[in-house]
């Protein structure tokens, strides 16, 4: 079987969610099929500047083919167009303009898919919202598999993506909430799908004492791992934690790991360790009392899965449907939506060791049932096998939706994307597959 994995950036040093996800899945599937990665020369996700060499290279045994980005992103223009299509009545032509402004716009990659798409058995696209995904799926719809990595953000409400979700052969969702959201907006219930997520490998040699010796931290602490960014809810986390530590007169600490995009407040009980190696990260996890995840928008939190694998409970932002749903299904953490809830839940987890242990046990069980690589691998292989069976039975000869014509593209009849997403149901979703 020959597979293509299409993703906006690819590299061993890239830690972005969808990109890392794509790399893990590529390396996983490479054991069963011939896998080629099709990506761009961009490294920076803000500008999509061409920084890597065009052409073919091998990363961890996978062949990677890079295509140049035609145009760098102009953040100002992108912001203006986003504001228009998200908040105003607009046309499909304006949505397509937005897609180009967002980038990475690599016409060469789309052309390559148009030329050689039929040489692959299946083409797996990561992230629904990019130029190459939209146009690439139109070129290879009869063999396209989509891993949407969608969050509840306004882009999901754009009309053009409805056909993206409906035209593929299969969708590999990250969570039940993501599936419910996309199916509500795109009405793609008939497309074969499965909730997969991503696996996680945790080392068996992590050492809490090593971490404590290195950092000289003796007090119990909550751990945050990830980009320190307002978009990840870190400003709220810092605010809540500072108020909590003042109010509770507790010696409980917050340890923060990750690259800072916003300043970390100077506080005696907040320790910022910056970017650390995987070994240090897992050492920190084994020493932590709990992991905190304040993000409002997640399609799947890998770090939460790692935390459960490391047997620590989590405290998540309950306003993120995915995090809340995962936590409830796993019975392996608590969630908060307000400061009062943050205080009470953190105090509960801080002071109740028995509860922490029980949640940790549940988290580990949930991880073993759903997020070990064996489980992920079997779900991917099972889906590929189902599609192959369907191909043998002539199931791939369904007609995909054609691109809208000029008149349809120019009519200003489409509702603001934000409005459409806001109308979608919220809250954790039942575990039905």
């Amino acid at each position, binding site marked *: 079987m020959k597979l293509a994995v299409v993703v906006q950036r690819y590299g061993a040093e890239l830690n972005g969610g969808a990109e890392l996800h794509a790399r893990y899945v590529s390396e996983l599937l490479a054991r069963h099929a011939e896998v080629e990665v099709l990506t761009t020369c961009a490294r920076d996700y803000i500008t999509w500047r061409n920084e890597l060499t065009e052409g073919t290279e091998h990363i961890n045994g996978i062949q990677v083919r890079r295509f140049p980005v035609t145009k760098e992103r102009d953040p100002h223009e992108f912001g203006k167009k986003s504001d228009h299509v998200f908040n105003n009545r607009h046309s499909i032509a304006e949505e397509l303009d937005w897609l180009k402004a967002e980038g990475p716009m690599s016409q060469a990659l789309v052309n390559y898919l148009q030329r050689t798409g039929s040489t692959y058995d299946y083409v797996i696209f990561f992230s629904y919202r990019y130029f190459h995904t939209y146009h690439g799926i139109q070129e290879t719809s009869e063999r396209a598999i989509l891993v949407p990595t969608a969050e509840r953000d306004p882009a999901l409400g754009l009309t053009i993506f409805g056909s993206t979700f409906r035209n593929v052969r299969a969708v590999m969702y990250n969570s039940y909430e993501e599936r419910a959201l996309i199916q509500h907006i795109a009405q793609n219930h008939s497309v074969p799908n499965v909730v997969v997520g991503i696996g996680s490998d945790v080392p068996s040699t992590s050492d809490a004492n090593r971490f404590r010796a290195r950092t000289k931290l003796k007090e119990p602490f909550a751990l945050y791992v990830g980009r320190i960014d307002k978009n990840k809810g870190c400003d709220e986390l810092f605010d809540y934690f500072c108020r909590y530590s003042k109010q509770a007169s507790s010696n409980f600490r917050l340890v923060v790991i990750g690259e800072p995009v916003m300043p970390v407040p100077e506080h005696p009980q907040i320790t910022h360790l910056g970017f650390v190696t995987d070994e240090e990260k897992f050492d920190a996890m084994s020493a932590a009392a709990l992991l905190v995840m304040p993000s409002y928008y997640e399609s799947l939190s890998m770090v939460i899965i790692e935390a459960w694998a490391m047997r620590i409970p989590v405290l998540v932002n309950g306003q993120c449907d995915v995090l809340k749903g995962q*936590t*409830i299904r796993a*019975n*392996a*953490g*608590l*969630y908060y939506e*307000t*400061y*009062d*809830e943050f205080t*009470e*839940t953190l*105090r*509960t987890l801080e*002071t*109740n060791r*028995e*509860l922490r*242990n*029980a*949640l940790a*046990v*549940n988290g580990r069980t949930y991880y073993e049932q759903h997020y070990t690589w064996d489980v992920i691998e079997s779900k991917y292989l099972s889906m590929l096998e189902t599609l192959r069976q369907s191909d043998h039975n002539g199931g791939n000869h369904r007609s995909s939706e054609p691109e809208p014509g000029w008149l349809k593209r120019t009519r200003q009849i489409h509702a603001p994307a934000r409005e459409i997403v806001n109308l979608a149901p919220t809250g954790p979703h039942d575990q039905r597959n």
Partner: protein
Amino acid sequence: MAEFKIRSDSVNVEHIMEQIRARIREKRGVDYTEDQIRELAGVKLERFLDPKNVRSDLLEHYRRRGNEANPNLERSHDPDPNILYRSNRPMVFRIRRLLSPILKLFINVGELSLMAERSEHIAAKLQARAELDALTYEVLNNLVVEMTRLSIEVKNHKMRVESVAARLDFDERRARALEESIRSRGNKRTETAGDGPNVNTEDGDQEKVPDRRRRKRRRGRRRPSGNNQVEPTESATTVTSSISSEKQTDVAVDVAVETNQVTGTEDGNEPPSNKLSSEKVQSTGSGNQTDSTEQ
């Protein structure tokens, strides 16, 4: 969080969250959302209650308008027939007056005049009523504003009472714990009193006292009350019990000082709760001392 009964195989996160939310509701009294509370906290009552628009003579206005709104519509006099012939042009008025006998042949001018007069009264009444309504609205508005202010104040007071009650509860528990600690340490010292240095008591007997300096200080402080002063003629047993109780007082002071050192603020100011607990501990120590002395 000892109230949660945990079984690792049957943890229900949603149930725990319900318990946590119930506890938050109990604390708050009312289940406001965070946004609502922020909004309430940010509201300035002056936005509604503009002092410039509140009339100081509101009652006077109210009474006057009230009278105007109820004019006497009784027929006190014959209606003025000229009301029908009125005009801005005197010439027209005169011609109408001249022709009035002819008009009287066709209609009852007197009744018509009465009706015209009444309609004028009714118009005046309506206008007065409208002004009265404005005043009533103003009064109602002020009442609502005051009610809002009071309800917020009541809520604030409730929260303050809860906070004070919680602090008081904490201080009481702390005082009790310190008392226990004092008792146990005092007992230990009493047991080991024989190991201390020998000192001469005023009646010539020798006693073991661990800290001579503190003993003097504490005695000096107690003298004004006169209750605990040891007379030179007292028996050795009485003196021993007195010394034992002094040791307890010293321990109480030590504990209080330690507590303040531990919980004191960085600038050295003692928090009110610590002061309270220190005072309590001292007074409690004195009480014990008095009791033991009396014994």
